[in-house]
């Protein structure tokens, strides 16, 4: 079966006064119809820019997709004209945004906002669209949907607004939903409800979705596969169970180590990833994670590792690390026991602490691409 979405070597850059920000740097992945994929990584690693690139929503200028192809349903999104892209947005690919508080237009009623896509893409008339809107609101469990449809967004709670966003995304039966941190702005109990709803509806409608998050806990129960991003690149690809059971990249180890575990003794300390994310204007010459990696060797700062299959793992498990790849020095390392060279860790910590505060701020700012969506 051909893939629904095939992204090849996608490169999105922002041309700023300080230089070119390599926000997404050679990302490739594919997604079958109905499949679910999680993209995980810390802030500013290019997750959201990847998602926005898929719909060609990168603000131009300063952003530009400089290379690569995005084949969606057999067509290259990057080669379409504007009208065709607009016909896809909201119809075949829908997006759920991070903050439901600001993603709904405060001066339009809920029903008008949901009907918009229906009228535009499904060519429904007003009354049909209204009927379908109420159905959709019921589907996402909005109580007394008929009455609430004519409410304004400020009359809805955060969780309800995110449900509205989901209803909007589902309205035209899209083939792919991009959920960009859909639960970050919600509190934990609501998070669980929203994730459940999203999962069930996607399964019911056989919609493929890409869940973008910085929270490994969120993707754990949600997606079939996970891609870990760092510094604008995918650094590890694996299916979900495999990634949690047998991660093969020091960055992923660091992420997993920094999550508190219920089954660990109370005295065990959480081990953070020291250092700062790379400056994407001038990324490190070798492995992007090398400056923060306590397992690093000389080769890491000289050559760029490829995304390659890893020995001792499932066939589709790939990672971008010299250490864990064939012939590397980390192939048999148990990441839970061996935390690597602690001196290295201290050195990285000291390095960051020595930096004058302005530099830290500048670097922290430089790592963020100019805000497309925040």
């Amino acid at each position, binding site marked *: 079966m051909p893939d629904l979405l095939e992204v090849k070597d996608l490169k999105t850059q922002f041309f700023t006064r300080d230089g070119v920000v390599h926000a997404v740097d050679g990302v490739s992945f594919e997604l079958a119809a109905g499949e679910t994929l999680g993209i995980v990584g810390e802030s500013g690693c290019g997750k959201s820019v990847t998602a926005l690139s898929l*719909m060609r*929503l990168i603000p131009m*200028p300063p952003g530009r997709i400089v290379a690569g192809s995005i084949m969606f349903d057999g067509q290259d999104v990057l080669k379409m004209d504007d009208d065709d892209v*607009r*016909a*896809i*947005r*909201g*119809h075949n690919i*829908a*997006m759920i*945004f*991070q*903050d439901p508080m*600001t*993603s*709904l*237009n*405060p*001066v*339009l*009623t809920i029903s008008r906002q949901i009907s*918009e*896509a229906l009228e*535009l*893409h499904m060519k429904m008339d007003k009354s049909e669209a209204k009927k379908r809107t109420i159905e959709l609101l019921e589907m996402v469990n909005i*109580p*007394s949907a008929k*009455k*609430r449809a*004519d*409410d*304004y967004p400020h*009359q809805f709670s955060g969780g309800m607004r995110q449900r509205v*966003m989901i209803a*909007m995304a589902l309205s035209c039966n899209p083939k792919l939903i991009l959920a960009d941190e859909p639960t970050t702005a919600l509190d934990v109990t609501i998070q669980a409800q929203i994730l459940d709803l999203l999962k069930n509806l996607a399964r019911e409608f056989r919609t493929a979705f890409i869940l973008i998050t910085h929270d490994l806990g969120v993707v754990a129960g949600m997606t079939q596969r996970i891609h870990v991003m760092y510094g604008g690149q995918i650094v590890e690809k694996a299916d979900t169970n495999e990634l949690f059971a047998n991660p093969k990249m020091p960055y992923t180890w660091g992420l997993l180590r920094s999550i508190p575990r219920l089954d660990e003794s109370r005295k065990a300390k959480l081990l953070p990833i020291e250092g700062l994310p790379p400056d994407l204007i001038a990324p490190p010459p070798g492995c992007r994670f090398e400056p923060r990696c306590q397992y690093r060797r000389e080769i890491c700062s000289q050559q760029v590792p490829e995304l390659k299959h890893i020995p001792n793992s499932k066939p589709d498990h790939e990672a971008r690390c010299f250490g864990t790849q064939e012939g590397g020095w980390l192939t048999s390392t148990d990441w839970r026991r061996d935390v690597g060279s602690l001196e290295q860790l201290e050195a990285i910590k000291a390095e960051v602490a020595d930096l004058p505060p302005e530099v830290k701020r500048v670097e922290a700012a430089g790592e963020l691409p100019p*805000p*497309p*969506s*925040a």
Partner: protein
Amino acid sequence: MATVTTTAAQQRSIESNILSRQQRSLWQDAFWRLRRNKAAMVGIVIIALASFCAIFAGFIAPYEPTAINTAKNNMDPLFVGGKYTDSSYILGSDQLGRDILSRLIWSSRISMVVGLVPTLLVFTMGASLGMFAGYFGGWIDNLLMRFTDIIYAFPDLLFVIIIMATLRNTWLGDLMGGLILIFVALAVVSWVGLARLVRGQVLSLKEKEFIEAARATGVPTTRIMFRHLFPNALAPVIVSAAFAIPGAMLSESVLSFIGIGIRPPTATWGVMINEGFVVFSQSPWPVLLPAVCISIVMLAFTFLGDGLRDALDPRMKI
């Protein structure tokens, strides 16, 4: 014994009460706040009265505004008393014996029209230019805004006077007794402020997530501009329009007063002041009465504008 527990039926009615509670939109909220503002309500009443006079001038006014009766000229208003009054001229008459009350009533028609039409023109021109500049940004923005700056650099009144003085004797100046030219002149100088205002609004609004969400839904650009952006930018625009109306009225009066506005014999408050000035030493009323009218209407619009600004400010939630 009083019970604190509610029955199932009560519970249900409470719930349904909450759910069937009257829905209020942003605008309904604003209107509710406006109604609580006494000054603004006084303003609305005065504006309504003035509009009524303007629309039904032909029925209310006891005389034609241009009916001359030289035998009864320079009459004082009745409330002054004395021998220079005539019971058929409630507010007296001017040096040609024209009834001041009738002229005031007919003038309100011109004033209202001069207040509204240029404001409407300004509204359309300024809002659309500002929206285009703000939304598209880049060189379009630069071009439009530099053009705006150039217009902005002229002193307003001087610019109007230049336009009026040069075009007054052309065909444009003759249309509807000079009214059309006044509309154009006032609109040409005052759209810039509104364009800047709208541009500023759009600049901040277009970065909002709901606009991004609209684009992600595949909404076409023009629809985003007019359906998603514009209603969000409307509140400050309405407020500035409420202040622009009295500004335009005053400009008309000023122009008419210095003799390059509406041509006599058409009655406007400015024309009346201009003509009354000649006989000011004999009777101040032909000058004072239209001046009072101008002040009252200006004040009414200013009250309304203030009220609107407070009502439309979301931080003013009461």
